[in-house]
């Protein structure tokens, strides 16, 4: 089976965020594989181990993203592809990313493409379905279970907390939701092997993409931190009196009840 995983290097949102000049400061911040993409990588490896084939992880980014690709290889992916847009693309949106990925994937005859359901930085959740649409293959989002039996693919997906059971077939793109699996940690031998696994680097030229084709459709005008909330009020005194104070505050000050 020919399996591809779309991964994104993201800012670890557990880190402190600093905004200056209307932009998030990334210097010195911790970067990780988007956690939902880790579920996708894990599932890809599991499917390959059960059905045979090869797992290729693909990312768009700059050289820094090599680190996340090596981690995916250390987990067990077979090959990695870095589409380096550093010199060609200044501003990227979901349209741009999906276009580039689809151009890369269009002649790969992928049976199964996996992605995270959302990236924790931009939080748009668009790239997976957009890629599927461009490739004209079916997609299923926020999956929590995947079973492939011959031609049939049985999936459970999370729809606002309810579980939807469905059937479809390959080729297919799915996006991973938490609950799909427990991503493995790269083992030491895994890390050693990863160093020797192929990591291909491509630029837009290699994919015959013109810069104009991938110009972002949307524009971020400003990035800002939410207005600092006034420090909350920690109530004091005996618990019963705190409780009655809280009730009266909720009714008269906050006016939410």
């Amino acid at each position, binding site marked *: 089976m020919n399996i591809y995983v779309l991964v994104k290097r993201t*800012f670890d*949102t*557990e880190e402190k*965020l600093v*905004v200056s000049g209307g932009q998030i400061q990334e210097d010195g911040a911790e970067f990780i594989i988007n956690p939902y993409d880790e579920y996708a990588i894990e599932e890809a490896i599991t499917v390959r181990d059960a059905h045979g084939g090869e797992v290729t992880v693909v990312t768009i980014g700059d050289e820094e993203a090599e680190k996340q690709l090596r981690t995916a290889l250390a987990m067990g992916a077979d090959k990695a592809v870095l589409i380096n847009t550093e010199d060609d693309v200044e501003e990227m*949106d*979901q*349209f741009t990313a*999906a276009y580039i990925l689809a151009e890369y994937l269009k002649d790969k005859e992928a049976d199964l493409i996996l992605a995270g359901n*959302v990236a*924790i930085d931009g*939080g*748009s*959740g*668009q790239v*997976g*379905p*957009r890629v*599927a*649409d461009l490739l004209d293959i*079916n997609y299923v989002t*926020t999956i929590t279970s995947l079973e492939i039996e011959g031609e049939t693919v049985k999936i459970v997906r999370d*729809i*606002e*907390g*309810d*579980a*939807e*059971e*469905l*059937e*479809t*077939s390959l080729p297919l793109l799915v996006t991973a939701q*938490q*609950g799909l699996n427990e991503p493995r940690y790269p083992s030491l031998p895994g890390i050693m092997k990863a160093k020797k696994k192929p990591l291909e680097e491509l630029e837009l030229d290699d994919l015959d993409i013109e810069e104009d084709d991938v110009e*972002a*459709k*949307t*524009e*971020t*005008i*400003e*990035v*800002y931190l*939410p207005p600092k909330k006034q420090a*909350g*009020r*920690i*109530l004091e005194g005996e*618990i019963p009196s*705190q*409780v*009655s104070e*809280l*009730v009266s*505050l*909720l009714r008269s000050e*906050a006016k*939410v*009840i």
Partner: protein
Amino acid sequence: MSKKVLVLGETREGALRNVSFEAIAAAKKISGGGEVVAVLLGEAVSEFGNELVAYGADRVITVEHPHLKSYTSDGYGQAFMAVVDQEQPEAIVFGHTAVGKDLSPKIASKLKTGLISDVTDIEGEGDDAVFIRPIYSGKAFEKVKLKEDGVVFITVRPNNIAPLEREERSGDVSSLSVDITNLRTIIKNVVRKSAEGVDLSEAKVIIAGGRGVKSKEGFEPLQELADLLGGAVGASRGACDADYCDYSLQIGQTGKVVTPDLYIAAGISGAIQHMAGMSNSKVIVAINKDPEANIFKVADYGIVGDLFDVIPLLTEEFKKVM
């Protein structure tokens, strides 16, 4: 320039979802005086048309087909694109719901346009409209707009944009017949896990429990308080992982994103992934034994104490005054 805006209306358990009314209000702003056309897709949905008009839609188009009984991106995609072809809208608004999230990227891709998802606020009107959305797990916000001419396409986060006042009005409800074929996904079954009653993502009051609730039974006092206040019970992943409650109650990055008027967090430490789902709530109350707990940083009011003392007392106190 005024715009014609299409809005996807959604139903759940035989009623329109609030987010559809909110989407109409967003569409009004974007339209800058243009026309707002609501779209309903399903097996039998025309009965809901007038209600969308009452909330501000100028017109409603329904597409009814047995293949639209359950949502599939193929079925809804074909139906919605048929409406787009007929109406040639300049803007589109969906709710940022399971359906909206799944369908909007496909439609945006077909229209070769940008999609601004999970919008919580709109500044300006008509051509000047700029969209505000949370990023980095809700730690920051960005203001986004469409770069060039093209269809303006947004999804709106439930409970953030106020719906318009309901008014008896008249507007045309017409049907469009669409041939829906070749569905690549077959829905076999939906296992209902979410609780009956108030929909968590639209609830005005949420009482959420974390690992501090300690057991299934521990959620009972929370439920009692939620019932009294006409709200819903939610949970942290910690509580779901420990099997104190079902994952359908999970609030946060992976679970539901909620923006109630009142969010009471009991026995929840306040991890960033949890906050991503609730930090926009209008008023947050934290109840935690640990005065250092992170949740107090976002709370408007905090009580340092045992939730099993505080919650039942709260219920008693509310009973007195309501």
